[in-house]
């Protein structure tokens, strides 16, 4: 069949073709503990091999590839919530250990060629941003995810409600977008352009990934939890 932007991935597709069509999915695989080297295996076969919930895996691949894609409510209810949370936690670790660490290192490389004063300014800005992201992830891991775990185990915590999470789901991407603007528009021209471009590419990729992450939280996690909460309240 011809390539078409409205074509979603499916279980019968070769796993290699999924990654060939969208290379950013390669960075999603480790979060499912899936390794490259699929040979001719289909997506379904790969999921079975690694014990991954196929519905959720497909959903993540599709979210990463199609901006307009949104899973139908009936599909949402098939998802293994514990697996979803594991995925989110793995993503957090991946972001802090790899993505943010890489940006920080590249930013350092870039700033090495700038004036000392500018170097300090940039480092301070980025470490503030990094701390903000870490706090955000910590909050989810220490408050939101355990709450959902309790909910799944049939114990409802009356002191917390998923709406609170939604309210706290503040914009952590403002600073990242600010950094892009600063690098593109306001850093003096004497900073190395190669190093600058490398940082920029990293930021753009991270931003895109974070955007998908937020969509998974807002469009999949929150609606599912809200349904579970409703079921509890009816009891």
């Amino acid at each position, binding site marked *: 069949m011809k390539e078409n932007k409205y074509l979603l991935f499916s279980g019968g597709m070769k796993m290699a073709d999924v990654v060939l069509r969208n290379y950013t999915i390669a960075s999603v695989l480790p979060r499912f503990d899936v390794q490259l080297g699929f040979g001719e295996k289909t997506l379904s076969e790969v999921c079975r091999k690694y014990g991954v919930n196929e519905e959720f895996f497909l959903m993540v691949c599709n979210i990463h590839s199609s901006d307009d894609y949104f899973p139908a409510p009936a599909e949402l209810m098939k998802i293994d919530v514990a697996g979803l949370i594991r995925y989110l936690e793995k993503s957090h670790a991946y972001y802090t250990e790899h993505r943010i660490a890489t940006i920080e290192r590249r930013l350092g490389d870039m700033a090495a060629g700038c004036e000392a004063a500018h170097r300090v300014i940039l480092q301070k*800005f980025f470490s503030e941003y990094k701390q903000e992201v870490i706090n955000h992830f910590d909050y989810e891991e220490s408050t939101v995810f355990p709450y959902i775990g309790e909910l799944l185990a049939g114990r409802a915590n009356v002191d917390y409600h998923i709406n609170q999470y939604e309210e706290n789901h503040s914009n952590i991407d403002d600073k990242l977008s600010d950094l892009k603007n600063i690098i593109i*528009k*306001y850093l003096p021209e004497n900073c190395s352009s190669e190093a600058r471009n490398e940082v920029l590419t990293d930021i753009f990729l991270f931003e895109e990934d974070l955007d998908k992450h937020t969509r998974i939280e807002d469009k999949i996690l929150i609606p599912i939890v809200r349904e579970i909460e409703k079921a509890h309240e009816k009891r």
Partner: protein
Amino acid sequence: MKSDKSSVVVIEASELLTAGLIRTIDDSASFRVTESYPDVAAYRKRPSEAPPAQIIIINPALLADSRRGGVKALFPDSRIVALLYSYINRDLLQSFHEVIEIYDKPAAVLHKLESVMGHNSHESSGSEAGELSDREREILVAVAKGMMNKEIADLCNISIHTVISHRKNISGKTGIKSVSGFVVYALLNNLIKEYEVK
């Protein structure tokens, strides 16, 4: 026969899309498609004494051969809405008052038409282009120094509302939204010294 509904003229080459638009618009309480044309040349042949439509919905691709930036000159008395389903140059799109995409739900289409009728002086709102004014720079520096909107309002003798609107314009022009981002901007541009940052 006179109608209370606002008149809409559709200029679009696809009969399918035109029919869909007419159906959607005629079903509404506030709008009515009075005429439709497959291209601009056909529109130009309409009698000159015919009253101008209040809204023109047109596929920007049909304007490719007309003068650059001539959309408003072509329809000086109408609100102009682009019907979009392929890539288009952003500058060209800016001369339209609103944009309808073919996957918009009927309710969204009508909502857009209503908003286009409501705002008569919409053009001047976006100030994305251009350098910061002196006032904006002054406010940016104050924000970077850690001052609150109220303090800035007192300092500059303006209302908080004005401070907020300046801040919006600053973000629109610079692309920077966070206070820390303003600090970096101000330091890089030597507008403040490091020790002035809280």
